[in-house]
């Protein structure tokens, strides 16, 4: 069976750059911005490798600020 394909949408202004989603992601989709910061001065998370996303929502489950929305399509569709 082919893998499900997913996408994440991160509210970068709400993100505090705590790194927990980066650690929780099983397929290493996310990273923290190395240089850019948001309006509150945090190095926010972004999808550095969006093609690998499987839409498992592990990042959203551990995000303390609810910044992450997750979308997924199953391969059958």
């Amino acid at each position: 069976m082919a893998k499900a394909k997913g996408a994440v949408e991160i509210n970068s202004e709400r993100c505090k750059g705590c790194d927990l989603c980066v650690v929780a992601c099983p397929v290493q989709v996310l990273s923290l911005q190395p240089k850019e910061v948001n309006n509150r001065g945090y190095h926010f998370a972004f999808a550095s490798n969006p093609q690998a996303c499987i839409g498992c929502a592990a990042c959203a489950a551990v995000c303390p600020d609810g910044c992450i929305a997750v979308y997924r399509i199953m391969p059958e569709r």
Partner: protein
Amino acid sequence: MENNEYIKRPENLVYRKPRLLNDNNMHYCPGCSHGVVHRLVAEVIEEMGVEHKTIGIAPVGCAVFAYNYIDIDWVEAAHGRAPAVATAVRRLNPDRLVFTYQGDGDLAAIGTAETIHAANRGENITIIFINNGIYGMTGGQMAPTTLEGMTTSTTPYGRRIDLNGYPLKITELLAQLPGTCYVTRQSVHTPATVRKTKLAIRKAFENSLAGKGTSVVEVVSTCNSGWKMSPAKANEWMVENMFPAYPPGDLKNEE
């Protein structure tokens, strides 16, 4: 860069921030477990459809501003007195879902009497207990639940048993009381444990609505600012050091 934009359509949505968790930026430190538990509480209330009849009681502690983040009715209690206020609210409004949201300094030190007696009376409330082993809000002082040898700002050489006593396992104490119907200890450091905690909170809320007695959900949490670690490191430290003293699992589950 991202050519998977076509996936981001409403019909493919798997997860988004619950509606009850509003857009105010939380004041919690980056990586604080409070945010996760707030989100779970909001999700559970939303899924149960009881937002119009839920009253939360937030006492003093980091969660003192919980009313800014979850769109339900809140009552602010004095430090440690949340179970006493919750008793009154629930007795006067027997059809409401009443829960308290307390930290370890609040529940296990300042409000020990209120907590134990509310649980002993079997009040139909839910107590959500965030145990991070430290007074996070006031600057990382020692709490009753601080581990032996743990460095805090008031025990700079580590907590000593001969001087400060043993870590207080208040959840085990509450499980002994006949008034409690559901006592559990969970954590929120991985996606799997977050989902288990959500189920525990849901079960506790259902028990409260059904009037089965007091439900206690302890969440072993991190305080990365107080522990002076990064959030990811604090989660590892919690698994290594907090779990031997506070093992996760159900302590009491009466049907």
